[in-house]
């Protein structure tokens, strides 16, 4: 009996179906929990799912490459989802056009602040050069950040992890922080979420308000461009 179960596990563990199913169902569960907790910032569905699935992958001794064989079908959708951000952008285009100047100023100020503060703190606390380079592009969407980090001698896989952690952190902090700073402008709140916390911040912004999500999507795109230009100049 025990051997049969083991044989079945060996068979299933190698098929992409297992980890694809686990990822989707774990997310459904965690999203339910987040909804039951009234979407409280700390009950972040990405963080909860990552811990659950990461724990399962590690606990079963599954190599990440095997996990990714299944999960890549979900990962692939990041590209089309980025393209689809054009749809809310199109729907709110008049509002966006009216906000061009505040967006441009906020983009430059916020992007430089996030970048310089991250690099300075990591350096001061004695992180090795490769880690500092890997941290620099962490506010930017994963694909771009990994490209920047790889070109400058960082560790793209570490950058991907730092990007996700930054996104989760930003998505958790943004609502309480901006409430405390009494910034009520939905556009400003969304723009900040997308700039500092890329797609995960954008996902959070869409949960709160579609207009905030739209501005978050724009900020994510613009910051990817700006960071790619300034990181090589700065390091």
């Amino acid at each position, binding site marked *: 009996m025990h051997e049969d179960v083991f044989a079945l596990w060996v068979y299933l563990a190698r098929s992409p179906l297992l980890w694809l199913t686990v990822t989707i169902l774990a*997310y459904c569960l965690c999203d339910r929990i987040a909804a039951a907790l009234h979407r409280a910032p700390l009950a972040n569905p*990405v963080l909860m799912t*990552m811990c659950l*699935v990461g724990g399962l992958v*590690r606990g079963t001794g599954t190599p*990440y490459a095997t996990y*990714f064989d299944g*999960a890549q079908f*979900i*990962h692939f959708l*990041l*590209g*089309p*989802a*980025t393209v*689809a*951000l054009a*749809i809310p*952008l*199109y729907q709110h285009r008049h509002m966006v056009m009216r*906000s061009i*100047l*505040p*967006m441009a*100023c*906020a983009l430059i100020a*916020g992007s430089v*602040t996030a*970048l310089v*503060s*991250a*690099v300075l*703190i990591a350096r001061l*606390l004695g*992180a090795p050069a490769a*880690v500092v380079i890997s*941290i620099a592009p962490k*506010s930017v969407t994963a694909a*771009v950040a990994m*490209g920047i980090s790889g070109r400058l001698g960082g560790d793209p896989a570490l950058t*991907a*992890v*730092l990007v*996700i*952690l930054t996104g989760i*952190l*930003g998505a958790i*902090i943004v609502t309480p*922080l901006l409430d405390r700073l009494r910034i009520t*402008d939905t*556009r*400003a709140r969304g*723009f*900040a979420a997308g*700039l500092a*916390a890329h797609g995960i911040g954008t*996902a959070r912004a869409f949960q709160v308000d579609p207009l905030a*999500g739209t501005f978050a999507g724009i900020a994510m*795109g613009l910051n990817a*461009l700006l960071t790619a230009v300034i990181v090589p100049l700065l390091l």
Partner: protein
Amino acid sequence: MLLSLGLILLCQLVGEAIAHATDVPVPGPVIGMVLCLLLLLARDQALRRMPAELRDGTFENTGRGILSHLSLLFIPAGVGVVQRLDVLAGNALAIALSLLVSTVLGLAVTAWVFHFVARRLHA
């Protein structure tokens, strides 16, 4: 639905091709987003001659469908954390403080500058 999905993928494909051919530091999907926006604006210019799927809101709904679970799409990359636990643990303080402080500052400065400029311009 299928045509909408195909067009979204086409925008990404052309975006990737442009990114690859020109060496601009913008990811293909972001260029694809701009192309998709242009596509929607072009559609409005010749609305009557467009296929029904592009006129009846199906395209918009397909896009919203993909976006409605944006959080899920980050899980596969996020689980990659299991590969780098040693580096994270070895530089835990530097990484934690750097991410935390820069995220708080980045959020606050961005939102505040946006708010300040918008109020000045009454935008």
